[in-house]
């Protein structure tokens, strides 16, 4: 109960500080808050926008939940999201399911580069995953300017993907996939031996080693699962929303996943509510950009405030 109160407080603090920062630069805090509200939950259209943003956020959030629970610093959601999108568009001609499977595989493989470097060369994954993000961004830039560029050759983007997720109005069925993934993640973490080993590794790797857990292998598996979730996010975003790739495809969803996971106190089911909140924030920030010409970067700012507020309540636990 207390953890829920802390999470709600942190979310409220972020929104209030946003309004306050706006006031510092001469915007009316009330109109700012009302634009945020109307742009996120004020209409059916806004709500759909919020839910659409929540889908990738939930999946990248789950990716971080799995990794941090295992004590692995996967800050590479952004890169895994991108390679997921790349794999999905390449595999799209074979249909939706192969495309999403390819996205997960690509995300897992990209994340595994970092765990391999950690195991063989002792390179800290907190840095390698970040560096792999930048590498993926330029890989995407090369792809949409080179081999995957649209046939018309006009813009640096790909042609439309050859398959798409079934739509429900503006929404797509990715929302069910994302929610199902969080149930699977919850079941995996709390109801399987694999989940117990994974959490034990994160809780205390030395104790886990004494208990006979192969910590190295556990880290590799956690990283692969985590990467698969972020890759899936990229695949779903491609097949459900953007339908093509362009340079700014990832739009920070990978990094935002960290805020989603921490607000959810690293709980897979809590991540659903957390992703909905940040989805609303991103959606509302988009409306601020359109109607009040305030940078949509305020959503990123809000994510930071949420994390810092949580720390103040000393509830951020990403033990290693």
């Amino acid at each position, binding site marked *: 109960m207390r953890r829920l109160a802390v999470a709600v407080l942190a979310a409220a603090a972020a929104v209030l500080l946003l309004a306050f*920062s706006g006031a510092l*630069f001469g915007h009316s805090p009330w109109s700012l808050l009302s634009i945020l509200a109307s742009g996120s939950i004020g209409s059916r259209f806004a709500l759909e926008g919020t839910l659409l943003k929540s889908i990738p956020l939930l999946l990248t959030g789950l990716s971080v939940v799995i990794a941090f629970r295992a004590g692995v*610093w996967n*800050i590479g959601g952004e890169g895994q999201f991108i390679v997921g999108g790349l794999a999905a568009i390449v595999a799209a001609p074979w249909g939706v399911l192969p495309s999403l499977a390819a996205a997960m595989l690509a995300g897992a493989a990209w994340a595994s580069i970092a765990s391999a*470097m950690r195991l*063989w*060369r*002792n*390179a*800290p994954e*907190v*840095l*390698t995953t*970040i*560096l*792999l993000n*930048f*590498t993926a961004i*330029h*890989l995407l*830039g*090369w792809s949409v*300017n*080179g081999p995957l560029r649209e046939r018309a050759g006009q813009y640096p983007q790909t042609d439309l993907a050859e398959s798409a997720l079934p739509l429900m109005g503006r929404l797509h069925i990715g929302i069910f996939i994302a929610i199902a993934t969080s149930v699977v993640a919850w079941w995996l973490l709390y109801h399987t031996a694999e989940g117990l080993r994974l959490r034990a590794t994160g809780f205390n790797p030395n104790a886990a080693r004494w208990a006979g857990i192969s910590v190295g292998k556990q880290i590799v598996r956690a990283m692969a699962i985590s990467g698969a979730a972020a890759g899936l996010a990229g695949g779903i975003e491609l097949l459900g929303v953007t339908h093509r790739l362009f340079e700014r495809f990832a739009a920070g969803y990978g*990094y935002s996943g*960290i*805020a989603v996971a*921490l607000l959810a106190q690293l709980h897979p089911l809590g991540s659903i509510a957390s992703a909905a909140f940040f989805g609303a924030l991103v959606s509302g920030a988009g409306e601020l950009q359109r109607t009040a*010409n*305030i*940078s949509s*970067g*305020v*959503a*990123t*700012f*809000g*994510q*930071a*405030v949420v*994390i*810092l507020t949580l*720390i*103040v309540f*000393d509830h*951020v636990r*990403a033990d290693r």
Partner: protein
Amino acid sequence: MFELIVSSIPLAIVASIPLLLAVEGELVVQRGGIINLGIEGMMLAAAMSAAFAAQASGSVVIGFIGGIAGALTIAAIFGVFTVVLRADQIVTGTAVNLLALGGTSFVYQEVQAFKQQIPQLRTDPILPLAWILIPVALGVILWNTSFGLRLRACGEHPEALAATGRSVKTHRWIALAIEAILVGLGGAYLSLALSNGFAENMTAGRGFIALSIVIFGRWKMKGALLGTAIFGLAAAMQYALQAANRGIPYHLLLAVPYLVTLLILCGVAGRVRAPENLGVR
């Protein structure tokens, strides 16, 4: 190939100055037991506050002071959370990066001063400072003074320092302030000398590359300089290759700095010994 390397040296020396200053700053805090992942955000904030101060005042000097002020602000936030509240350093660093990324893009759109002319840097005192004076001074301070010994004790075995009645927190705050001054200069150099003002996310991962180079250099000043030199040369050759137009796609060349850094991290052969208490809350 040899020609390509030689011709890239001058650019490498200048273009890697912000990175070098960040490496030097991060070396100091890591010796004191703190991993500052927020260094990326610190440099970004400094680049913006420097550009703002320079454009609003018309003076480069005030611009550099503004850069330091911006970096110190971020250091204060990072310090309150990690030194005072003893929060997790990676989580705090990530939050600080998001704070700076979102905050700078918000402020950049709000403030009119960024549209004004940027004053030019006529002479470059930062170059010898970054490559010679600061490394020598920091080397002496860290390894030849009692303050340096105490700071390194904070990184290896803080209880030992505490047992002598001295404050670990004070030493870490000083280390953070030194880092902020260096990163502030680096950020200012980035927006005032290497570019024509501020641009969103202009640090492009330099902070993370700096952290990697500190590890590659095994937490030594010589290693830090060598790592920065190797990296700077590789990054500069990217431009030479681009100009030579050898048919390597531009976007793949842009990935070179990050690939080189990944290789640098993997090149840390065997097990390197980090400061014993690095990153421990």
